[in-house]
């Protein structure tokens, strides 16, 4: 067991455990926020696991999750829009915290990978993850008022 896998374990136990607790209890607005943040945490730990197992192919899992995770959150934001109108799901402090964690993980992995194709891929995954997370958070907090109904 090396440091990367240890970091992934800690991130999973702490971050994903908190997300599970948040999604299982409390009002609906808290649950959708927890669902959104679980994507960031799990994607970051998948990237750490790829580095820990020393298999660059595992980065594809993180890439897929960085693309599809925010899509899943947008599905909830769209279809639960009526339930969320009187109870805005805004948690920007938590969002920026997870964005910071994601950025730190991606930077650490880039330093470990060194310049090259792998680093470009990691940067693309990180940009997709952080961008998607911010868009999904904005959608949950009612940022896109023009897109309604349906």
């Amino acid at each position, binding site marked *: *067991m090396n440091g990367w*896998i*240890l970091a*992934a*374990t800690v991130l*999973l*136990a702490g971050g*994903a*455990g908190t*997300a*599970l607790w948040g*999604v*299982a209890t409390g009002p*609906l607005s808290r*649950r*959708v926020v*927890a*669902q959104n943040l*679980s*994507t960031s945490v*799990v994607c970051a*730990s*998948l990237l750490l*696991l790829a580095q820990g*197992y020393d*298999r660059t*192919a*595992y980065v*594809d*899992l993180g890439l*897929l*999750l960085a693309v*599809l*995770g925010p*899509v*899943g959150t947008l*599905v*909830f934001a769209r*279809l*639960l829009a009526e*339930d969320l109108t009187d109870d805005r799901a805004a948690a920007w402090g938590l969002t920026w915290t997870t964005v910071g964690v994601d950025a730190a993980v991606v930077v650490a992995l880039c330093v470990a990978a060194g310049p090259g194709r792998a680093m470009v891929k990691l940067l693309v995954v990180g940009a997709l993850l952080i961008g998607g997370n911010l868009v999904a958070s904005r959608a949950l907090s009612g940022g896109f008022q023009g897109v309604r109904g349906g």
Partner: protein
Amino acid sequence: MADAVIVVALLLTAGAATAAVAVRDPARQALVLSLLGLFLGVVFTVLQAPDVGLSQLAVGSALTPLLIMLSVRKVRRRGKEGGK
């Protein structure tokens, strides 16, 4: 010690599955279910089956919640129309 990550992933999966059963509202169940999909993907990855994990993540994170939420909305609408 090397199995710690497997234990954590399995515990998270068991917790998410239990929560998905314990929560009663279908819309909230869909939220827990998307987390369960993510955790199952992690379990497959730490058990060195990333191909299975890849398809599990694709299906579990976006497709299953979408299908459930669409069905819930349709049922709710039909219920409202029947109420009138």
